């Protein structure tokens, strides 16, 4: 057993960053790609080795802690840079390095012709480092390092094409919105420090039951604040607004950061702190409601978006909502399970979308696609798998996790949330298959001989909505000089291979979570997580018949959604058009995402800006400086008065001298 083995995992990508910085200009594209992918591949290998080591231990000992050094120590408070591998972080680290590796490989194809190839991989590796720090940290503060680090990389990668205003805007928005969440998270962590005196998970969780009263104000406040952090990172109401805009980044980034890994950090954090959250039922309730509301709201918005990546973005927000309400109803294991399956199929969806976009020469508007199934067979097949997975059809991965969440919600008596989840599932199936149909089925709505099918293309719906306040559907026209023209064809191998691998995972990935009605006892996943999560959220187990009933219901609604999508967009597009016309106002509201961005702009961004301007122009320059300058002017005025005595005539001066002498005489006379 040659420890250390944990710190090497985040260190590998970091080393790649350093090497890239120092020697990147001499490596060339191949070298850079090799370096970046190699580092992440090695990190994956190291992670596998570490997890195997972990798995080899008995259940009680499944925890590896490695302390690198003391970060800082002030008074009685000290923070270590130390890493923790337990079953929970094991899942995360495998997902992150595994999916991350695939996406790195994919990126070598997708970004092949970008002039900033090297910079892209630099950021990507940096992201891997930060994300691995986040999941491997053994205390909240080190987690916060990763937490902010991924935020930074997200910022850099969203704004990767920095010459595009909308991209840098989106990056900035992501960072600032995340910061609002971080503000909450930081305060929450401070509550923990103030009461428990530590940020170390083990110590906090061990002492929490003695220090906090379950359901008390303090623990509720602390967990709520931490949840604010989670809403920022994981794009929940009210801080979800940055994620759809984040689609300005290159597609592999969307896949890696905004689908598979970073956005699930909030869920990970909540699950990691489940000991605390379980002590605060009010917070859990809030999480459940927020999660369900987000799942529904994002799904409704996703119904009408035309940009392929935006549909996926809202779908991600919606799926994150599922994860949160899983946590909210106490099904932390189910939440993490969904994190994992979602990572597989959503990464696949994004990469598939990327492949489509790549094939379509950076066209992202689904209204200008169609009929790609034959032209891009691998992409089509893998995308179809992922779409089925997310729609929740057994035995694909998404079914198992989503069903577990819904079942847990039902079992814990959260019927309203269960209903919302079910409704969300219908919409998910609908909009995902809408995406699939519009992209791969039907007739091509573009010039098949190459070139863009610009706005003349058949516009199935929403033509009246070409006005676009936020630059949606902007193409990735960022100086790529390739492929404006030429027929649509399948992507190269380094893009299709990752797609295939992820497709396999999207099918089989859910099987580890097959539990109760099919096998005896807890699912494999549940047993694996037991050392961390305890023996499960002790819900009254449902009868087998109920379980099967719920499954049937969930499959049924998914099938209904799929059927509707095919019907409205493939068989008789008139239905879709008719619906849009019938519910124009609703459609507009959805298309404009309930005008939330505009609302935030009106109530937060603009007032703050205006107020700042006033503060500066009025308070600083008029009031404070006015007083300062006023003192100056006052003294100047007094001096001006005194100056009147300085006539410049010697006679006057002589008179004053004499008067002075007289005064002196008077003084002597009086004394």
């Amino acid at each position, binding site marked *: 057993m040659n420890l250390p083995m944990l710190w090497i995992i985040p260190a590998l990508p970091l080393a790649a960053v350093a090497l890239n910085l120092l020697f990147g200009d001499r490596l060339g594209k191949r070298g850079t790609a090799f370096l970046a992918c190699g580092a992440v591949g090695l990190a994956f290998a190291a992670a596998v080795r570490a997890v195997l080591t972990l798995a080899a231990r008995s259940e009680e000992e499944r925890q590896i802690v490695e302390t690198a050094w003391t970060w800082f120590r002030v008074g009685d408070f000290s923070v270590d840079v130390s890493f923790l591998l337990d079953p929970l972080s094991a899942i995360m680290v495998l997902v992150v390095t595994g999916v991350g590796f695939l996406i790195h490989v994919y990126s070598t194809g997708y970004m092949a012709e970008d002039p900033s190839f090297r910079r892209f991989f630099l950021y990507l590796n940096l992201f891997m480092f930060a994300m691995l720090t986040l999941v491997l940290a053994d205390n909240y503060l080190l987690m916060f390092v990763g937490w902010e680090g991924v935020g930074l990389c997200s910022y850099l990668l969203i704004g990767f094409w920095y010459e595009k205003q909308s991209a840098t805007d989106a990056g900035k928005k992501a960072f600032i919105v995340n910061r609002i969440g971080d503000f909450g998270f930081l305060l929450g962590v401070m509550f923990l420090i103030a009461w428990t005196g530590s940020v170390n998970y083990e110590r906090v969780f061990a002492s929490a039951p003695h220090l906090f009263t379950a359901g008390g104000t303090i623990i509720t406040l602390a967990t709520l604040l931490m949840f604010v952090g989670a809403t920022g990172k994981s794009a929940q109401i009210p801080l979800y607004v940055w994620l759809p805009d984040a689609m300005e980044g290159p597609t592999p980034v969307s896949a890696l950061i905004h689908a598979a890994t970073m956005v699930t950090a909030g869920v990970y954090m909540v699950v990691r702190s489940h000991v605390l959250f379980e002590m605060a039922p009010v917070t859990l309730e809030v999480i459940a409601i927020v999660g369900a509301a987000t799942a529904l709201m994002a799904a409704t918005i996703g119904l009408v978006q035309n940009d392929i990546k935006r549909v996926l973005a809202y779908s991600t927000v919606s799926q994150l909502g599922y994860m949160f309400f899983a946590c909210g109803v106490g099904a932390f294991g189910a939440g993490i399970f969904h994190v994992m399956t979602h990572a597989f199929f959503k990464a696949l969806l994004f990469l598939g979308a990327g492949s489509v976009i790549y094939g379509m020469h950076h066209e992202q508007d689904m209204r200008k696609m169609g009929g790609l199934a034959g032209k891009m067979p691998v992409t089509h097949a893998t995308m179809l798998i992922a779409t089925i997975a997310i729609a929740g059809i057994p035995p694909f991965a998404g079914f198992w996790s989503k069903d577990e969440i819904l079942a847990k919600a039902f079992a814990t008596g959260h019927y309203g949330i269960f209903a919302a989840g079910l409704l969300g599932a219908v919409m998910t199936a609908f909009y995902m298959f809408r995406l699939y149909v519009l992209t791969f089925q039907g007739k091509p709505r573009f010039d098949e001989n190459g070139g863009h099918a610009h706005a003349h293309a058949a516009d199935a719906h929403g033509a009246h909505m070409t006005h676009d306040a936020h630059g949606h559907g902007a193409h990735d026209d960022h100086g790529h000089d390739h492929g404006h023209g030429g027929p649509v064809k399948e992507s190269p191998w380094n893009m299709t291979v990752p797609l295939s691998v992820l497709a396999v995972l999207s099918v089989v990935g859910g099987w580890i979570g097959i539990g109760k009605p099919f096998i005896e006892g807890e699912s494999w996943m549940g047993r694996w997580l037991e050392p961390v999560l305890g023996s499960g959220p002790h819900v009254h187990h449902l009868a087998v018949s109920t379980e099967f009933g719920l499954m049937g219901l969930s499959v049924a609604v998914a099938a209904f959604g799929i059927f509707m999508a095919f019907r409205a967009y493939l068989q008789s597009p008139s239905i879709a058009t008719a619906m849009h016309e019938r519910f124009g106002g609703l459609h507009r509201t959805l298309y404009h995402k309930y005008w939330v961005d505009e609302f935030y702009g009106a109530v937060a961004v603009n007032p703050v800006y205006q107020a700042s301007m006033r503060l500066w122009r009025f308070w*600083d320059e008029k009031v404070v400086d006015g007083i300062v300058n006023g003192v100056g002017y006052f003294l100047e005025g007094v001096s001006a008065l005194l100056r009147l005595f300085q006539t410049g005539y010697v006679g006057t001066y002589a008179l004053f001298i004499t008067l002075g002498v007289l005064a002196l005489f008077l003084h002597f006379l009086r004394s």
Partner: protein
Amino acid sequence: MAQLPWLSLLVFFPLAAAILVAIMPANAHKPIRWWATIAALAEFVFSLPLWWRVIPGQAGFQFEEKLDWIPVLGAQYHLGVDGVSGLLALLTTFTTLIAILGAWTSVEKRSREFFALVLALEAGMLGTFFCLDLLLFYVFWEAMLIPMYLLIGVWGGQRRVYAAVKFFLYTMAGSVLMLVAILSLWFLQKQYSGVPTFDLQAFYQLPLAPSRQLWMFLAFAFAFAIKVPMFPLHTWLPDAHVEAPTAGSVILAAVLLKMGTYGFLRFAMPLFPNALVVCAPYIAWLAIIGIVYGALVAMVQPDLKKLVAYSSVSHMGFAMLGLMAMNAQGFAGSMMTMLNHGVSTGALFLLVGVIYERRHTRKIADFGGLWKVVPVYSVIFLVVMLSSVGLPGTNGFIGEFLVLLGAFKHSVPWAAVAATGVILSACYMLWMFQRVVFGPVTHEENRKLTDLSFRERLVFAPLLLLIFWMGVAPQPFLDRMQPTLDRVLQMTNDRAQMMTASDAAATAPLASRLQAAPAVNAAPAEQGGAR
């Protein structure tokens, strides 16, 4: 004792170098800057032992030097160093070297006088940090003002005279009050012990009736608050920074502002602990207002330097808040924030100076798309900006976090409001960065910008190194400052209790020489709090 008067040498070597530079031929630009650089480098190397020779565990003053200065008054030439002043002195010598290197090509007129003044300023700053005699402190404090005044007034921008006079008068207004307080301390000390002295350590032993402390504390606090600068007294800073030459801005931000917080830590707080307890909430709220206010106003600045200047107001608000929290984390955080601010904001000013030198404008609107033209510059800018924003892993985070933690332990609302500064700092910095570095190149002039020269890279390399060192492994810094900070904290609390206890009895003979202050609530500093 054959010990070298090391601290005196540290203080007076730059002065000697300044004089030597000043008598060089006026138009020998090259030799002048070379010699100035060599002097600053020698001084820095010479000060490096402060890092390891000042023994961290030993809390008191070390390397003390004591000579009679004005025996009648009991004023002494008394120098000494401890963890806090040692670190700040290191920051000073380091910053001066960086500033001189950074100003190599930017100063064309009267370069001889310029470099001489920078070196003289260094002497003044070091003296201020080292001296342990209040009269001497006052002398250094004022002496420091003159070179800075000239640097702004002669080498500044368009409104340099206004800015220089404003800077001078603001600081003077405060320091005059401080002088009065120093003198009244002296009288009280003389009455108490019969021996006239300005010695700081003697004052540390002087019991003062809580009712009497308030006015003296306010006088000290006013002087230091102007220097920090705290919220309503900050308006000299944007003007001074905008008009000052780059080197002046760097030194002003990196060191001069620290004089204020250092003054609180060394003088105002331990000397007048009971008054501090009364005033701390007000000062803390002013600091918090400063944090938010500075950030908000920074957001709307059209001028790069002004933006950085207002961000200084915000950052120094953190430093003050940490002090007012009156606990180990707050103190350490405050001290870290001082060092961080010195490094990060100094670097920011240098960065602004670099493009100013090339383009002769500081308007944000005049830039855009710099990443394409000057990538190395942009990357450095990015790192420095992130450190200023307080990204974990860079130095900024440690300070901010510790301050917030300290504030949180003292009062949750303090931390809650102050933490919004974390959001706002991201807002103004990222927005500025986006407008300057991202986007397409909108001004043709910017296409011809040249990237950093070797000398400039040499300037930024140590700054970046420090940013990461202090962010990743700040413990060496914390180890050095903590014994001292603990001692200050201990002393402040002890004195507060002692004087509360002995208010009526022991200090009765002193009578009410100073006007009695309003009744003092003499609860110990740990009040409210999270416990």
